[in-house]
């Protein structure tokens, strides 16, 4: 894998982003700003699941109307994030925060998948409840914890404490 990342880092596109005065800051601020969309929408959905935000708004309404915007945010996040990774793969590869970030993202994904395959199937029964069932509340809380951890690791990755 190291050889592949070294090769990737030597490609023209990678060098171009890394050495560009404008390209890197633009991709980087797009990545950070999309937080407002992706994390903002996800966090509000999670807070609704936990039962402390947007009480009175049916959960099914939030998932059908807000989730698409969250997904759009995720796509921008993933593309800009992939480009940032592409600009210096070796630095990311050797960074402990980057590795933890990947693990947390995987955990967030598994949590979301599990939630949708189980508790969410019966959403019609509890959609209007001010406090969703314990399983849904736990899924919301875990999602908040994992995604917050992803943001923290992403930020910490920029500091070269352990390089």
């Amino acid at each position, binding site marked *: 894998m190291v050889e592949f990342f070294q090769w990737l880092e030597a490609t023209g596109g990678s060098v171009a982003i890394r050495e560009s005065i404008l390209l890197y800051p633009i991709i980087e601020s797009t990545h950070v700003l999309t937080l*407002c969309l992706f*994390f903002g929408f996800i966090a509000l959905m999670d*807070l609704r699941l936990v039962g402390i935000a947007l009480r009175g708004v049916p959960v099914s309404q939030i998932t059908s109307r807000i989730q698409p915007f969250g997904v759009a945010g995720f796509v921008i996040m993933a593309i800009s994030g992939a480009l940032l990774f592409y600009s210096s793969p070796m630095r990311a590869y050797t960074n402990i925060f980057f590795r933890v970030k990947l693990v947390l993202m995987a955990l967030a994904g598994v949590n979301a998948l599990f939630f949708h395959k189980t508790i969410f199937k019966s959403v019609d029964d509890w959609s209007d409840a001010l406090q969703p069932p314990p399983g849904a509340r736990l899924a919301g809380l875990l999602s908040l914890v994992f995604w917050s951890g992803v943001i923290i690791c992403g930020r910490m990755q920029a500091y070269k404490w352990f390089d």
Partner: protein
Amino acid sequence: MDLLPYFQSLEATFIGTKVRESLWMFPVIECVHLLALGLLGGAAFVLDLRLLGFGLRDQAPPDLERKLHPWLRASIAMLILTGVPMFLSEAIKCYYSPPFWYKIGGLIFAIIFTLTVRRRVAARTADKAPVIALASIVLWMGVAFAGRWVAFY
């Protein structure tokens, strides 16, 4: 009026010095700042989407405004609370940074606009208020963008 001396004394304050001399304080404060930024985005844009005619269309804007306002207020408070110590730790750098001045100008405008005009419009709008929503989105995104660029220039 030359503001530089004020910025110099701000940088020399106790909090400014502590944050600047610490290895971990700035990054930790910055993480909280980013989480609050995300929350602000959610709390602001869910209502803006509704005012544009998207998102939670089955909810009346005044209801949605009432439910989201505490989260908006809390995230703005958290952003200021974490932003001030970061600013104090590098006040002189900020003085010479054009993005910083855009950010502060935009921020003051965005806060006043959000807490007065947008709030009142949302409280009595039956359906849409696209101009207000677009202004809110552009303002907050602009502030966040300029804020990120303080680190570059």
